[in-house]
């Protein structure tokens, strides 16, 4: 169970990135499936080549931001629809990630030889090295930064772009730039999560981001269903998204205990997200039918 919580928190960081594109910018960004491996690849390879762990982490975030920039340019400068822009970046990242990892599908990094920030090995330890504790600190700092940023003039213009693009332009906001900034921030956050995940599990795999968008959406939707009515503050909403990711991982853990074949997990995740995405739609249809009868 501590393992599920630690993993959930690390994926929670990624889910916050998804929240920024999906909810704040209203942009379904599929780049994340690629970025979720890029961050780890950059961080692990730099560390294997002797780079300081914090510098490597920063470079990972930077790499993620470039991926976001690519998707943003596909969409704003080349007029490609959002989903397709993300898919194009995601696909190209597969090759790029392999190239970063010296054309191997995975690369290991040992916690005994390298100063990894979080590690699976310490998950039951009651000390400062516990990955749950460390990830919580990182989450708190990240949420604090985002809360500040989205309250600034630039942050407000990003939120306005997601809320009403026509109105934003009428108020003098360059919505293309706003979208690019948002995508860069979101993918930077996803890359951070990816780097931490590769530390946690002690290796980076080219496929580790596959389906990340679905996990991110699951976390966002779970948080919406459970806390949507309680948490109105932006910072609390981000906290809820992280909690959503933890709940997702606990549920997965339970399902695995019940004996589900691990290979079927992605099918299960997709079905759960599909159902939860459908609930608001079905509810609206049902309400419409009921009011129709009443009239």
């Amino acid at each position, binding site marked *: 169970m501590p393992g599920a919580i630690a993993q959930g928190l690390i994926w929670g960081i990624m889910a916050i990135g998804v929240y920024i594109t999906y909810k704040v910018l209203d942009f379904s960004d599929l780049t994340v499936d690629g970025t979720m491996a890029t961050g780890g690849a950059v961080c692990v390879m730099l560390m294997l080549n002797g780079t300081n762990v914090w510098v490597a982490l920063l470079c990972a975030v930077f790499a993620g931001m470039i991926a976001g920039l690519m998707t943003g340019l596909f969409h704003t400068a080349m007029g490609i629809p959002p989903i397709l822009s993300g898919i194009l970046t995601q696909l190209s990242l597969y090759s790029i990630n392999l190239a970063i990892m010296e054309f191997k599908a995975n690369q290991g990094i040992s916690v005994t030889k390298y100063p990894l920030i979080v590690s699976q090995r310490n998950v039951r330890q009651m000390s400062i090295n516990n990955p749950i504790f460390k990830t919580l600190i990182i989450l708190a700092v990240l949420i604090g930064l985002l809360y500040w940023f989205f309250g*600034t*003039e*630039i942050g*407000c213009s990003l939120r306005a772009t997601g*809320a009403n693009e026509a109105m934003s*332009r*009428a*108020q*003098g906001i*360059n919505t293309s730039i706003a979208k690019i900034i948002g995508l860069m921030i979101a993918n930077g956050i996803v890359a951070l999560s990816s780097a931490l995940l590769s530390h946690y599990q002690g290796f980076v795999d080219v496929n580790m981001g596959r389906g990340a968008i679905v996990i991110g959406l699951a976390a966002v939707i779970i948080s919406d269903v459970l806390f949507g009515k309680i948490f109105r503050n932006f910072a609390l909403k981000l906290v809820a998204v992280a909690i959503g990711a933890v709940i997702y991982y606990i549920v997965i853990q339970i399902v695995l205990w019940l004996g589900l074949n691990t290979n079927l997990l992605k099918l299960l995740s997709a079905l759960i997200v599909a159902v939860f995405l459908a609930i608001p739609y079905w509810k609206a249809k049902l309400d419409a039918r009921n009011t129709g009868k009443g009239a």
Partner: protein
Amino acid sequence: MLDLKNICKTFNAKTVNQKVALNGITLHMDDGDFVTVIGGNGAGKSTMLNAIAGVFPVDSGRIIIDGTDVTGLPEHRRASLLGRVFQDPMTGTAATMQIEENLALAARRGEKRTLKIGITREERNVYREKLATLGLGLEDRMTAKVGLLSGGQRQALTLLMATIKKPKLLLLDEHTAALDPHTAAKVLTLSEQIVTENKIMTLMVTHNMRDAIRYGNRLIMMNEGRIILDISGEEKKNLTIEMLMDAFAQASGETFANDRILLS
């Protein structure tokens, strides 16, 4: 000052759906002019306003606002010169943001947005006073999401947003058409009040002949992408609906058969 010089715009050019929306619009407005625009469906009224706002590029002609040639500028770079209120109350505001946040966005129109805080305490006090002038009680609901407001409240708020930073030109695009008659009258009165108090040059599209006659110091009528009638001064003051319909028949060679206009 506004100068439109021979503006032309054709949508879907060289296809079966080709539609000449603006066919050589030339219009000069002086500072302080309040011009009402009337015309049937598809006459080009909204298209003219959208061309001024830069929603799409025009095919030919020049658009000069207050001495600045904006013809080639993208929409967001013209925004500092313009205030806009749209027909659909949903268009002018961000529903998921607070009332005060919407105002703060509008107050920064045309300014560089930085990493400074998006809304300051002093601003809040200014907004509270401005909202109070609307007489809708919005000053007590400044942190409410705009999505909770009624159509009339949203249009009033949009009007305030459009003028909170005095624009060179205010574009009102049938901004009361989606409201019930009572609310529409209220929003119109409010519009006139704001326009006259601040002496804002205004272009107001309406489908209501009576409103077109009652408001403003000048009236233009459009048909098939052209301005076919331009009445101002004393002549405008003495206008009647019958005179307008006759003028339309003369200028266009057809009768003004548009239910929406006749009934309103």
